[in-house]
């Protein structure tokens, strides 16, 4: 299925921040096991995790939220371009299954302030 995710709920920033920090501490620059939810927090001007490694053909559950202003969560790679909004006060959840190995970039595509252009995260998809 390729559809606009419909799962969004309000959240408590402090609690979500803890989830995102725990995720980043455990899996930054590491292979994420398939049953682990990926928690990402956007902040001026970085993503809470800088690189994750995922397996091709596996369903991953992503959660994205913002700690401050509006951000855009944009995955850009050779075989995929997906863009959703990251709104303060809302956690947006979606499932993604990369069908091709390679390097994907997560950039912020909603202007969030002077450092907006530097927000970058890498998703390495391995076969």
């Amino acid at each position, binding site marked *: 299925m*390729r559809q606009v*995710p*419909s799962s969004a709920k309000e959240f408590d920033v402090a609690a979500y921040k803890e989830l995102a920090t725990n995720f980043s501490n455990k899996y930054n620059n590491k292979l994420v096991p398939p049953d682990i939810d990926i928690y990402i927090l956007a902040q001026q001007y970085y993503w809470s995790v800088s690189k994750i490694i995922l397996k091709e053909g596996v369903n991953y559950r992503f959660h994205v939220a913002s700690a401050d202003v509006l951000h855009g969560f944009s995955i850009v790679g050779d075989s995929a*371009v997906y*863009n*959703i909004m990251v709104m303060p006060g809302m956690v947006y959840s979606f499932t993604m*299954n990369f069908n091709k190995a390679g390097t994907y970039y997560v*950039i912020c*595509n909603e*202007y969030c302030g002077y450092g907006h252009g530097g927000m970058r995260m890498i998703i390495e998809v391995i076969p």
Partner: protein
Amino acid sequence: MSSYILSFGSLKVYNKTKHLIIANFIMALISLAIGGIAAIFIASGRSGISSLINILGISDMNYYQWLTLHGMNMLIFWIVWAEIAILYFTSSVLLSWPIYGYRIAWFALSIMLYGQILVEYSIFSGNASVLFTAYPPLAADPLFYIGYIAFLFGAGIAVIMFFATIYHAKVNEAYKGSLPLVTWGAAIAGIIALTVVFQGIITLVYTLAWRIGLTSMNVMAYRWFFWGLGHDAQYVNVVATIAVLYALVVLGTNLSAMKFINERYAKLAFALVTLFVIPGIGHHILVDPGFSIILKQASGSVGSHFLSIPTLMHAFALAGAMEAVIRASGHTSLFGWIKRIPWSNPAISATVLVLISFAIGGILAQPQTTLQPNLNYHNTLWVPGHFHLMIAGGTTLAFMALSYYLFPILTTKKLYSVKLAKIQIYTFFFGILILALTMTILGYEGDPRRTFMDPSAILSSWYISPLIFVGASLAILGGAMFIFNSIATVLLSKSSKNPLEGLITNYDIKEGANISKRGALALCISIVIILLLLYFFSFIRLAAMPEFY
């Protein structure tokens, strides 16, 4: 009250109206110049040419400042000032009746000017780099919101004066029967403009209250209501542009085209736009969390798609009128009339180029207004690619061409340089076309809009980025030629008995000639076919992408 009769179509121009229209148009020109200067920096910033970026000193700190300046001056100030000048022209000059509430109209101008100065000041001071959308919780200097509100308030008063003028012309029997088509179109634009002003003021007063600590901010509410301003304002532009195109086709053919335009049909198409405008807001929130899928689908996708119907109806009417004029003067093959289009007549060449620009821009709009494919295009350069074709290659080009007729009509002076005007139309159009198509290709690959970054690590087509600078430079040159010609006409040109000389093509309409519009119909059908092909392609593209839900 002093006035004079124009030889052209026996229009009566009142001196007071003339001054008011020219004052509003001069403000539009100033705004266009500021927006154009900002465009040099933005286009250089996105060109990826590092020496250019260094010479101009573009940085993370000032790129967004230039972008805010560009957005506010182009999308709000230039367009609104020009539209108000056009509203006054279509009510007062076309109905041969003086502007009602002349002093109030000047008051509106001064409030708008005051608002604009506050906005420009806050942007220049570096405290309002929030871009045209000003999405909270990004916060600007309160002066920015106060200026924005004042400008919209003044514009609202001006629109009311337009309606008051029509009303007074009607009760004093300045015109008989139904409104002339161009005034009718302008009135539809005026109705939408009132809703825009209303929603804009609500949004910005709420934002100002939040900014000074009186209330909390609901970002979703802001996004919805802001697009009541930001999106519907674009439909004021589209409707005003189409009204201007009817004026151009009629002016450029020395009124010959008038008898080939079905007025009832065109008026119906204008009225249909108002039905679909408000539901169209939703295409801006298609990938926002929090809004229901059904609202997104109904409002964003369906509402926006329906807007293609009246737009295509107008495209057919305008192209058909041109075809009929040329056929009735003796050319009969299906597409043979296209070769006979007077390409050096600014009104006609601009009309054709604006229609081409609208067609490409409108086709590109379909994937991004559809719930699922929009996931691939949202907030990429595809979006400004689309809207530069609509607002710059469309609305702006149409307004530029109209001004080549409007100034001579108002001042009875010949255009400073007819030749420059002819070249200018093409320079601007091709500049915008190169710019917009480059943006579209980069956006297709995911290049984010409103982002100052080096895309070379991310995009495979990053090397075409310099074309952004090439296209923008041509367009900016075209803008400069236009501003120069307009101001030189007001200041340097001499009065003439035939101020529109060189700007008009005369047709010898043969009685009982073939006035078929088959060629125009075929063109419109091919636009629909290309539109549907792109539409289906965007789903095929999506299907090849990873699962996402």
